[in-house]
């Protein structure tokens, strides 16, 4: 498995995700947003952070970068793309994933650990979450409230395209466990082909037992072991 992390001006989780990829033996290269071509890779990661300061709309300006055409092409060819936090916002602005991400319901930035349930594990990203009923990962965002009209929501539910939902510690998907006001407690979604995943929580921040857990590891293990 080979990966490429795209670095935008203002990305700030690029290093963190590169460290995680390395730890789980995925060969990674960093790619500057101004490039027009990608190195040979199976997986592209759009990291978290504040590309272009999140000015105008989160993820919007990054979605106009020169490298984006290559990212779109990669997807067309069936390559994998993972967008984490700001990366998810970029995927939405690029149109690679549907819906929008609005400001958190309480209108403030939220940094805390949340509990998640993996609803679709039959994809390259989530295979290893089979073993875990409830996952704990950190979120850190201002605009993570996933919003979609009822048709789209229905479509996501019906086609099993919701990868993660926020839940409580016991795994109940209830509104009290929804940190940001997302429709249907959505924390991450897949595209139709299931080669693109966008998610608000940060798996790369919890890959070590000395931190508050290592549930993020399972995503990188899934990716490492997925057929290329």
């Amino acid at each position: 498995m080979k990966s490429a992390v795209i670095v935008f001006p203002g990305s700030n989780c690029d290093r963190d995700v590169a460290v995680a990829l390395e730890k789980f033996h995925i060969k990674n290269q960093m790619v500057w947003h101004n490039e027009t071509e990608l190195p040979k890779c199976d997986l592209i990661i759009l990291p978290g952070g504040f590309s272009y300061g999140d000015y105008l709309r989160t993820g919007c300006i990054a979605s106009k970068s020169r490298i984006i055409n290559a990212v779109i092409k990669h997807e067309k060819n069936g390559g994998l793309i993972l967008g984490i936090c700001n990366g998810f916002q970029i995927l939405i602005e690029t149109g690679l994933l549907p819906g929008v991400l609005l400001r958190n319901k309480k209108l403030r930035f939220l940094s805390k650990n949340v509990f998640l349930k993996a609803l679709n594990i039959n994809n390259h990203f989530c295979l290893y979450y089979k073993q875990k009923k409830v996952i704990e990962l950190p979120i850190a965002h201002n605009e993570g409230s996933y919003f979609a009209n009822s048709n789209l929501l229905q479509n996501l539910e019906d086609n099993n395209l919701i990868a993660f939902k926020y839940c409580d510690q016991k795994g109940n998907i209830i509104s009290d466990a929804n940190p940001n006001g997302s429709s249907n407690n959505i924390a991450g979604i897949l595209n139709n082909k299931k080669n693109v995943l966008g998610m608000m929580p940060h798996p790369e921040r919890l890959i070590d037992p000395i931190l508050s857990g290592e549930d993020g590891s399972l995503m990188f293990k899934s990716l490492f072991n997925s057929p290329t």
Partner: protein
Amino acid sequence: MKISAIVTLKKDVLDPQGKVVSQTLRNMGYDNIINVRQGKYFEIELNEINKEKAKKKVEEICKNLLTNIVIEDYTINLK
């Protein structure tokens, strides 16, 4: 030439910022506030003297960058 563009959330999209503003105003004693909606305002200075052309450009810009058409609308005004 200066042209302004206003980008607002579509009517059926929840506007939590506007809601907070109107709530705050009511708390401050402005009890005849019915509703507040918040949007973005852009003032665009263009090197273009033809009004129509300038307007077209800004229209394009609104579509291509300034609005997310899924949830937002825009209006344009010559200054």
